[in-house]
């Protein structure tokens, strides 16, 4: 696996990732958003595999496996269980109109590529344009959290932005040290568990979506 091939593959996967993020942004239904995140995680797993092959670093293979196992399978399953338990309506009510969200998304992507262009020498350390893609993915993930009302869609946004970070982290020369990657994933899982518990407790005690609570102000 030569470097040039790895770079083109990473760029293609980057494009795919951006596409899945657009899907999440444009998703009208909660299910679609969850499936889009699962797809995104699969692509990141593949990217991990490609980079593992290109750099010959065994850790990347392990990370790719864990990413697919946890992020592509376990988390979407957890989200779907919570959706069934909570039984909320499926539509996603946007806080700011979808068209405005898409315009902002475009601005973010342009900004991240503009920033990445200024980094001369260090680009080699990060194969392909994983850096701008990573920045774009993360900021779009946060944008999803801003523009959606319901708590679950915010969790989806959070996982999407974490995927962005993973993608850049893997693309850095020989990838992040293994224990760090595993630690990060462990924290993401713990975070997801706590959020799930919170959503369920509010749903059971107050019967309102936790993201709608806004008593604490001023």
């Amino acid at each position: 696996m030569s470097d040039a091939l790895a770079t083109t593959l990473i760029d293609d996967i980057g494009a795919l990732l951006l596409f899945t993020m657009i899907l999440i942004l444009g998703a009208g239904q909660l299910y679609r958003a969850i499936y889009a995140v699962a797809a995104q995680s699969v692509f990141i797993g593949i990217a991990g595999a490609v980079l593992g092959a290109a750099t010959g670093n065994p850790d990347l293979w392990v990370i790719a496996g864990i990413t697919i196992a946890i992020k592509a399978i376990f988390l979407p399953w957890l989200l779907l269980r919570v959706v069934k338990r909570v039984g909320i309506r499926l539509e996603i009510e946007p806080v700011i109109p979808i068209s405005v969200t898409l315009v902002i998304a475009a601005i973010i992507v342009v900004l991240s590529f503009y920033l990445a262009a200024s980094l001369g020498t260090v680009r080699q350390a990060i194969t392909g344009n994983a850096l701008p893609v990573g920045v774009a993915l993360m900021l779009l993930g946060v944008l999803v959290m801003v523009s959606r009302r319901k708590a679950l869609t915010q969790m989806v946004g959070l996982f999407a932005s974490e995927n962005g970070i993973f993608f850049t982290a893997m693309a850095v020369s020989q990838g992040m040290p293994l224990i760090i990657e595993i630690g990060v994933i462990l924290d993401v899982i713990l975070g997801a568990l706590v959020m799930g518990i919170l959503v369920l407790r509010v749903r059971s005690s107050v019967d309102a979506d936790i993201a709608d609570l806004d008593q604490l102000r001023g």
Partner: protein
Amino acid sequence: MTPALGLGVMAACFAAGALACLMARWAPRSAVVIGHLGVLAGAIAGGGVALALLIGGPVEPLRIALPELFPFARMSLAVDGLSAFFLLVVSVVAASAALYGPAYLRAAEPHKSAASSAAHVFALNAFVGSMALLCCAGDALSFLLFWEVMTLASYALVVAETRSDENARAGLLYIVMAHIGTALILFVFLTLTERGHGFDFSAMRTGAAALSPAWRSALFFLGLTGFAAKAGVVPLHVWLPYAHPAAPSHVSALMSGVMLKVALYGIFRTGFDLLAPPSGPLPASWGWTVLLAGTVSAVIGVLYALQQHDLKRLLAFHSVENVGIILMGAGIAMLLADRGRAASPLATLALAAALLHCLNHATFKGLLFLGAGGVLCRTHVRNMEELGGLARRMPWTAWLFLLGAVAISALPPLNGFVSEWMTFQALVLGGGKLGGASGLFSVLAASMLALTGGLAAACFVKAFGATFLGRPRSRHAEAAREVPLSMLGGMLVLAIACVVLGVLPGFAMLLLERPTAQLLGGPGASQLVTVHGPLVLTGGEPGGALATSISVTAVAGLFAGFALLVWLVRAWPRRAGRRLEPTWTCGMAPTSRFDFTATAFAKSLRLIFAMLYRPHRKVERETGDNPYVVKRLHYGGDIVDVAEMNLYRRLQHLVTTLSTAVRDRSTGRIHGYIGFVLGTLLVVLILYGRG
């Protein structure tokens, strides 16, 4: 006993007094007495050190290094002429207040709990100790620390009774204004210490010398505002009439008599010493601002004092007036001061007038507040309308209060007249020397000073008359008895000081020798006293073109002689004795309702100066069935403190509405929170993203 040792003894006395609060749990009464003894001993020690430095002692300032508390600053005490003089001012009033304190507390607040008397003793010692040490502070950090401890201790004394809300509000207004002052002073001192690379005053002087004149003037005006907020100059005086009456009377005497002077010490220190250009005259704008502020404070202070019917609030407003008079002296001194050439005697006269008025005001204001305290602790009533007829019941307090009233109205035999006469001389002859529009303005300021003198006289005739003379207008006034001896002792000390400073001003000139010489660089105040030593006081070069000299001692002698002569003439020929008849009130039986109350007395001046007072009155007539027969008449009339209304209420209203608007606008929604994170990130990336 070297002065350094004296200062150590003083600090030790205050510390011992403060520690007396620990024994308050078992013996509150003796704790109070010991605490006040600590203050007395400290004051005497301080007074001794001050006199030693002012009269005898070496010329160059006394430097004592304090233990090293903070690594970045060397704290030290440096007692030069100016500090010694203000230390003397603090000691005089503190000694008499300490004498006065215990008996007053026992009489005014008999059921004071152990905890609050302990707090009172500790705060009092901290308050007087910090003021004394503040005058001797040698560097910026110790100055600021003692300044804040002084503010905190006086705040604790003001809000001593935690029950009444009025005290709490007075305390809040006081500490906020004090803090604004401190913030400004902090900024000025830190700029100087940063430029001068060192915390002590000499480094600050080099720092100031390095500054450009524009920067130096800006710092002076900031410092002036800061100190003026604490000294109660008119636009920033609003807290004073609320805070001073709230404290116990001997503390009000300390606050009015001494704390305001310590703030003025700050103005003298920055204006004449730290920020003053090494050579050449002080910038004219400095002198003008101080003179203008002084005149406005004097006139407005006394005008508002005239309409007050709460005895202690009236005295507090008079403090504003007297601070104004001191600033007038300081202002004309700044205009005339010229360090380069030999300092003109008029500048020395003006500065001597301002400093002497500090000492004089401390003595007679202290005496008046202690007198008012005597009235308060016997009648528990501060409103003059419900007093009256106390002169027969409390003769000693009445005579001492009258003496203080004559002194504050700047009438001849006493000390108020001496410093006011010197200020008149400085303003008139200084105006003549300055010439042109500035001369005209300074002579006009002199006539405003005369107006202030007249108003003060009217105000104190009202205060003395309504409180002590005529028939008692309430049950409390009826039951009043003479105050205990120790309180009279405290008042007597100040009364004697008033008389001595009034009749023999020459001695005061000797005290002023060192400060004036140090600040103005020329010969000291002693050139103002001609060959006859303490008797004659002259403004201008002796025998020179501008000589105006008076001998207050001779006048006092004549006055006493004539008084004795007339008394003999009146009492000598035996003739029909004295008959006591009720006062003639057109045939009706005279009751206390006939007396001319304080409101009635001040009514004519209220109408004349209505434009400033904006008085509003409401009169309700209670008529029975027949509309023409008036059963009861309710008269309510008060004046509006213009500065307070426009400046403070509006500012307070603006700040609260602004903050509530900002608070209400913030929604609790989480999307807003995350939006802020995203927005901030994008903005910072755009601004700082590309190197």
